[in-house]
Every structure is written in C-alpha cells, then in structure tokens.
C-alpha cells in the first residue's frame, strides 16, 4: 500500500507545491494555518483540482494532468474526516452511517454492518438521534464510523480534534490511534498541534507557505529540526538569527551572546533552544552561560516559565526557561546565571 503525491496549484498569490510518497503508516502534515495542509488533502480526495501533477494510490492513478486523468471523488475511495465532522443534519446517526456502506444492497446486511460499527465506535443509544443532538466527541466518532464502513483505501484526517474540548480530545485521540494503527493503509493526518502530531504519527512533514520543508520520522523532525519553521512548529520558543564567529562558535543576535555549538556553523542562519533545555547555572566560567535579569514569571499548571534578558544587552529579546515549580522555588531570585548547553542548541536554516 502506498500513496504518491506530486501536485501544484496556484490560488491568487498562494502557491501549493508538494511532493511526497508514503506507505501504510501515519504521515502527519504539520504547519501553520493557511500553509496548504488541508488543500493537499482536498487535492488527494478530488475536492480540489491541482493545476499540475500526479496522484497515485496503490498503483491506481487518481490524477495525472499530462494524461488528463481526474478520477471523480466518488471513485477515489479516500476517507475524508472533516474538522466539522460533516454529518448530514437531516439524517439520524444510523442513516448517516448507512449512507457510507459500500457494496452491500440488501437491508439485513446493511443493518448488520451499521449495528456492528455502532458497537465498535461506542455509539450505542445514539442510533436514532440527529447529529445536533450528539456531543462533539460522538459526532466525530459517528463521522469516523461512516468513513470506515465506506472501506477507504486512504484515510485523510483534517484536524479532527480541533473543535473538541481538551478532555474529549484526548479520549478521541486514543480511540483514533487504535483504529488507524489497525488500518493497514496510508493515513494522512493534518494538524497544527505538535503534541497530537507526535503521539499519533510515525512520519512528519513540515509545511510552510505551500511547500514541504522537511519530511522524516517523528524523532528526526522533533529531535533535530533543521529549519526555523520546523523548530517553531515543534514547539521551540527561543530562536535567534546568528552570525558566524568561527567553525564552532556563533553570535546570537537577539540575545547578544556568543555561543559554542556542536557541529559546524557553515550554512547555519538561526539557532534555537527549547525552553526546557535552558538551565540555571552556578559556575561563572561555565560554557555558554550568561547573567540574566528575570523579567517575568509565567505559571503553567505544572511548571514555571521564566522570561530572562541578558544583563549586558539592553534592547535584546528575552530567553524563556521552563523548569519544575519546586526547582524554581529553591533558586528563585531576580537575577541569575543561565546556561544554553551546546547539546540543546538546534542548528537551523531559513
């Protein structure tokens, strides 16, 4: 099972240009809103028509601009889960699901399939209800049930959790994980929530302004993002443009600090360091350390984010440091030395 996508589409000043191939696994498209994630899914489903390109699903050509092939969405067999669930409002849950059943004509067979999926998706008791009488989680489960009975060859999940409350989100995510891992066919998952993406997918592609920037396993993409937007999308808050000092040192312009880096500085335009990699430090001679003024303390549910500004730098930007509440309670002061360990520094390109 494989999905090959190579599409290009112009919409005003926006230019979508993506090319990737994926197998029977979960590939996440991670990007800011408006970067073309949903547009990519819509091109695959046949809802949007690319200007140029080719889409092949498991040997079946769905779209080929050169050969003038454009299979209608009805025949592509792409299960598309929309953010707003898109259940038909005039039909009950049962009728909605029955709409998706493929191939089975006789009534008893259809009823059996419906009953089975209702059981599996924990929708018992909602059969006769209309979509607007369901909770957000039930709506999304019913929409997923309708897609599963449709026997799709590829699953396209377009921000399926974004309309839900956080506690419902986590439960639905767990249910979704067990379903997509047993699916055995390509799954594309679009989201701007990095935690969701990390938990659900095996491969991650970072998208920016209509283009695919990086693609790799989730550990590669989160562990060593190579681009500025990749670092930002995977949650790195401290990012600064740099100038090269020598092969192993760079000058971070936002903070006015010269820092030692692991690896070579060639081609590096920015560096980033995650807030939990910034550490308080006692030793005045420590590498990559600087005395900072505490500008603000932000309390999170289970940690503290301390915003710091290097004392020698008047107008510079702040560095965020995140640490457990009790650790901060012990060392809390208005001015302290911090270290940006070379191990934690991400070397980035524009």
């Amino acid at each position, binding site marked *: 099972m494989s999905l090959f996508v190579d599409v290009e589409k112009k919409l005003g000043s926006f230019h979508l240009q993506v090319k990737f191939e994926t197998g029977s696994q979960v590939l996440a498209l991670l990007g800011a809103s408006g970067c073309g994630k949903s547009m990519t899914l819509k091109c695959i489903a046949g*809802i949007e028509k690319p200007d140029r390109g080719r889409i092949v699903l498991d040997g079946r050509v769905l779209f080929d601009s050169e050969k003038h092939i454009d299979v209608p969405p*009805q025949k*592509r067999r792409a*299960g*598309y889960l929309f953010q707003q669930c*898109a259940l038909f409002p005039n039909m009950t849950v049962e009728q909605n699901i029955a709409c998706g059943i*493929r191939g089975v004509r006789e009534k008893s067979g259809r009823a059996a399939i419906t009953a089975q999926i209702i059981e599996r998706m924990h929708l018992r008791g909602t059969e006769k209800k209309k979509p607007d009488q369901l909770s957000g989680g039930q709506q999304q489960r019913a929409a997923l049930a309708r897609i599963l009975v*449709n026997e799709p060859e590829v699953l396209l999940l377009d921000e399926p959790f974004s309309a839900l409350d956080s506690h419902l989100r986590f439960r639905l995510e767990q249910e979704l994980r067990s379903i997509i891992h047993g699916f055995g066919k390509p799954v594309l998952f679009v989201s701007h929530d990095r935690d969701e993406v990390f938990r659900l997918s095996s491969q991650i592609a970072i998208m920016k302004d209509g283009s695919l920037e990086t693609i790799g396993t989730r550990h590669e993409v989160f562990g060593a993002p190579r681009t500025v937007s990749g670092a930002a999308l995977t949650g790195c808050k401290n990012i600064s443009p740099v100038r090269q000092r020598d092969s192993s040192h760079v000058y971070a312009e936002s903070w006015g600090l010269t820092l030692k880096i692991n690896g070579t500085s060639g081609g590096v335009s920015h560096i980033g360091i995650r807030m939990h990699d910034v550490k308080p430090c006692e030793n005045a001679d420590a590498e990559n350390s600087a005395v900072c003024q505490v500008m603000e303390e932000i309390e999170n549910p289970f940690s503290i984010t301390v915003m710091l500004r290097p004392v020698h730098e008047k107008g510079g930007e702040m560095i965020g440091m995140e640490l457990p509440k009790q650790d901060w309670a012990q060392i809390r002061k208005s001015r302290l030395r911090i270290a940006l360990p070379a191990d934690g520094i991400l070397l980035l390109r524009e």
Partner: protein
Amino acid sequence: MDWFPLINSLRIAGISTLIIFFAGIFAAYYIAKAPKFIKGILDVILTMPLVLPPTVVGYLLLRLLGPRRPVGKWFLAVFDTKLTMVWWSAIFATSVVIFPLMYRTARGAFETFDETLAYSGQTLGLSNTYIFWRIRMPACRQGIMAGTVLAFARALGEYGATSMIAGYTPGRTATISTTVYQLWRTNDDALAFRWVLVNMAISAVVLLALNMLEKGKK
C-alpha cells in the same frame, strides 16, 4: 356566485409555481457556480421581471407570443392554436413575474449551505444527484419553501401582464384579480367586494403559512 375565477386563479398559480419551482432551483444552483462575469449578467436578466412594471412584461410577452409574432406565429402554424387569450396564456405571465422570487430565495438558501457536506458525500461515493436531492435540498428546505409560498402568492395576485396576454373572458380566462377590476368597472360593487374578501382570505392563509415556516426555522 360563479366560482370559476377562483378555480382559474388557483390552477394558473399552481401550475406556474410548479414550473418555476424547478426552473428557479436549477437556475439558482447552476448560476451560483458560474464564473463571476456570467453570474453578474444572468443575475440582472433573471431578476429584471421583479422590478419591471407588469405591463412591460405583458408587452414583451405579447411581442413574442402574439399570433403575428415569431413564436406565436410558428405555434399557430404547427399546432393550430393561439398562445394568447386562452386560460393558460396567463401561465406565461405569472411564470415570468414569479421566477425572480423563486430564483433569488433559492439562491440565498443555497449560499448558506455548508459545502463540506457535499464534499463529504462525494468522498463517500454518493452521486451528485443524491447529494442534491437528499442532502442539499433538505438542508435548504425552509428557504426554498418560503420562496415557493411567496411565488404562489404573487402568482395569485398577478394582474397586469395576465390581463394583457389572457384578457378577461367570463368563464374562460377570468381570474380573481381581473374579475374584481371588471366588476368594479361595471358598478357591481357588492360582488366585487365579495371577491375582494375571497382574495384577502387566501392571502391571509398564505402569509400565515409563511410565518409558520419562519418559526420552524428557529
């Protein structure tokens, strides 16, 4: 009291509403998808009868359908029937006049439809016909029904274009509105007043139905 004008009015309004129901919906559906330029032009042409005086509509229809005019002449030659001055001539007049009402309300209803529903239907393999009749139409039901009621009410009250193209022949082409005018003109005030009451009763029922539809919307 001869009830012919009532029956004639109802059948003319009924038939023209039925025709315009489908014509208006399909025009609304396809024009909503047309390129902007074509949409703008068609919109002006199709909405025109709403703002034109009915006599102008009647004049234009007579120029087209009159026995010595292109379409009317051809029809007379082929079918040996005149298109004007028979009871169903009025259907041309009412249809043209009520078309914009149906077209505009249907388009308004379609514009509020969430296209995601159509997309999800397509990806599930449902045919476009199924999606139109079973998903789009039910979702836009209230707006379309309101448009239909309005169109029917307007067709019942049509006077200007109808009197020009179908005339007033008692027992053959007379409608409620042409009868009221005729009775008033011939000083039969009592009977004219009775028809006025009948007309007002029908209008009240129609408006009541419209209100109930609006309530159902909430």
